[in-house]
């Protein structure tokens, strides 16, 4: 049932590699062939990997599951993997990584998979998905990837430690592996604020009822407090014998990791999955900082009086430029991370992988640009 490792599928993919490469090149046949196929059905596009929304389920007040039917070119996944999902929000391409929350069996049977998204108050992507994405809509996807899978470990005893929307990869692993691994021992310790916030509450309960090798523990932090040593020891005394899979907010994972190590779990038995980079809020106040030019592998110190273009030049790079006053866009390059201030508009750009005009951009704190 493990789709990715199935030899027949592997060889089919291998023989299609040259076609993949052909379609990714720029040319007349590629542009117009892709256009015609996409006009028939967007999922036929040989250049863009896409999926159609086939169903949307409300899980809790602020969590929804989106069921996707991907293009045939999507190679499938192993339970626990994540993928990039992209949409167009107010004309702007946005993308984030999400764990698959459904089973491999469902994908083999119906050709569908799902992601489960929790609405984050200031989150651009999650809010857009909640307010706009409808059945039949098309989203862009990437191939599934990741090492947060049971295939990576021979361990027979497993502890899933999840908080909030960190449950999603666990759900995929449980629904995939419970039916086919009766010899493995699973325990899930799931932290949520209160009963209303528990994602997959019913599904998890029925799995626990059905499989004796699965032990479910839900902790409501509103009443039982945040994760702590005592609680962890009482809920899972044999943590040290288990391979631990950890997924949740950054703060939760940091504390959990320390507690686990104190309980005797060695670092190489803790696997964790984390998404998103939390922005350094102080960066907005800063001028200057360090700029890392990733292609050249060079770093430059900024004092806030020089543009990224000037910094690149004083670091010995020869980036492309034109007017040097923000008119012609010749100097445009991708800012991979960090904040820059646009001298012309005064606006601060925070987004990752955003194109900036280096001649009018001043770094605000630590910045990485693809130069």
């Amino acid at each position, binding site marked *: 049932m493990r789709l990715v490792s199935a030899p027949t599928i592997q060889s089919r993919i291998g023989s299609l590699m040259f076609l993949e490469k052909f379609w990714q090149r720029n040319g007349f046949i590629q542009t117009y062939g892709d256009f015609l196929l996409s006009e028939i059905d967007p999922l036929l596009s040989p250049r863009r990997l896409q999926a159609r929304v086939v169903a949307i389920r409300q899980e809790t007040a602020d969590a929804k599951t989106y069921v996707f039917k991907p293009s045939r070119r999507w190679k499938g996944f192993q339970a626990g993997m994540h993928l990039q999902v992209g949409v167009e929000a107010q004309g702007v391409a946005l993308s984030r990584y999400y764990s698959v929350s459904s089973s491999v069996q469902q994908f083999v049977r119906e050709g569908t998979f799902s992601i489960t998204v929790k609405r984050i108050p200031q989150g651009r992507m999650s809010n857009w998905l909640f307010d706009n994405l409808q059945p039949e809509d098309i989203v862009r996807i990437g191939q599934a990837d990741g090492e947060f899978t049971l295939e990576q470990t021979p361990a027979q005893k497993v502890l899933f430690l999840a908080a909030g929307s960190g449950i999603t990869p666990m759900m995929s692993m449980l629904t995939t592996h419970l039916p086919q691994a009766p010899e493995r021992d699973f325990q899930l310790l799931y932290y949520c604020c209160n009963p209303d916030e528990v994602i997959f509450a019913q599904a998890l309960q029925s799995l626990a009822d059905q499989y004796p090798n699965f032990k479910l523990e839900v902790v409501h932090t509103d009443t039982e407090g945040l994760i702590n040593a005592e609680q962890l020891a009482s809920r899972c005394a044999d943590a040290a014998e288990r391979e631990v899979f950890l997924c949740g907010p950054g703060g939760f994972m940091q504390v959990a990791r320390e507690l686990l190590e104190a309980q005797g779990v060695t670092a190489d038995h803790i696997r964790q999955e984390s998404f998103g980079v939390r922005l350094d809020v102080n960066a907005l106040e800063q001028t200057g900082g360090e700029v890392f030019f990733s292609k050249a592998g060079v770093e430059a110190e900024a004092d806030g009086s020089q543009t990224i273009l000037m910094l690149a030049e004083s670091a010995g790079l020869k980036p492309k430029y*034109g007017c040097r006053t923000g008119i*012609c866009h010749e100097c*445009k390059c991708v800012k991979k991370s960090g904040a820059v201030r646009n001298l012309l508009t005064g606006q601060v750009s925070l987004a990752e992988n955003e194109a900036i005009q280096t001649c009018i951009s001043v770094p605000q704190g630590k910045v990485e640009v693809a130069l």
Partner: protein
Amino acid sequence: MTMRWNFKGSKPEGKPVATGQELAGQAHGKSRRLSPEELEALGQELEALRQEVLADLGQRDADYIRDIIRKQRWAEIGGRTLIHFSLNPITWAVGVGMLTTAKILENMEIGHNVMHGQYDWMNDPDLHSQTYEWDNVCDGDSWRKTHNYEHHTFTNIIGKDRDYGYAILRLSNDTPWRPRYLFQFSYFIALSLLFEWGVGIHELEVEKLENKEVTWREKLPFIKSYARKISKQVMKDYVVFPALAGPFAPKVLLGNALANVGRSVWASAVIFCGHFTEQAQTFTEEECENETRGHWYYRQLLGSSNFTGGRWLHIMSGHLSYQIEHHLYPDIPSHRYAEMAPRVEAICKKYGLHYNTGTFTEQFSTVVKRILRYSLPPKLEAMLPA
């Protein structure tokens, strides 16, 4: 940080020099002279409008360009199919018309505007200014350099803007007269017919090669990339598609050639209406020395000219019918120019600046007159009625 440049070096320098500032804003044509304070205020008002529209960009703009791309692609597929499988001259002519339309849309409303960065904010790799490659013998990188940088930065500065007359036409008395200019109307016709080839070879800077300001060796990388782009375009339109038609190759070859020439003629007419009309002003290097952003806006306003027309005339001109707005805001999606134009015109009125517009026929006839007028030596030219 100051936004000034110095023409002598490529990098901006900190301290402004007085000369440019004193000359800046002198009266041009029907427009009055602006004081440095007024130039500053003008710049701020125009910049405020830019910010307002930038903040409003969204789904409407994305939908607009995608819709145009979709129409262009169907027109191209339909046109090529008709040229290929036409049974009579009429269906063939319709095919040529559709292919010409598609090529005009791709170059003018899509390629030119995408390459200006008008849709970079969408974060779509297929619509990114620095990687887009258009259906034109002019190499994309060469275009970005000669057009986006040189022409849009140094617009209508005699000696700096090589698009002013394309180094073969004499369009004002700022250029010394030579006997060869007597025949410049025929150069104009030839340039119009072969416009894409002329634009493609623009970066070679023939006039500088003649003066030995640059060497052939320095131009080698450009020549290579131009040759690569030419071979790609020639293969497509004049080898592969005709060959696919087997015995009917000649009609495909002819159809494709006509579509390319048709686009060249239209593109050159539109572009000539943008800067070479009677009231389009020129500037000297001295008055633009250490130029402020306010004066840059002022120069773009006075150096450009619009023409009026219906929605599809604007679309087919790539909205270069709003050349003034395009030059003020080259990186704002072109279909917004129509909404911005009344406000730009109101700002012009407030500052006593001439807003240069008219019908296509009116504007184009002043272009033709200008070409004919300045083919004559200054003494003869002075005798002509204004």
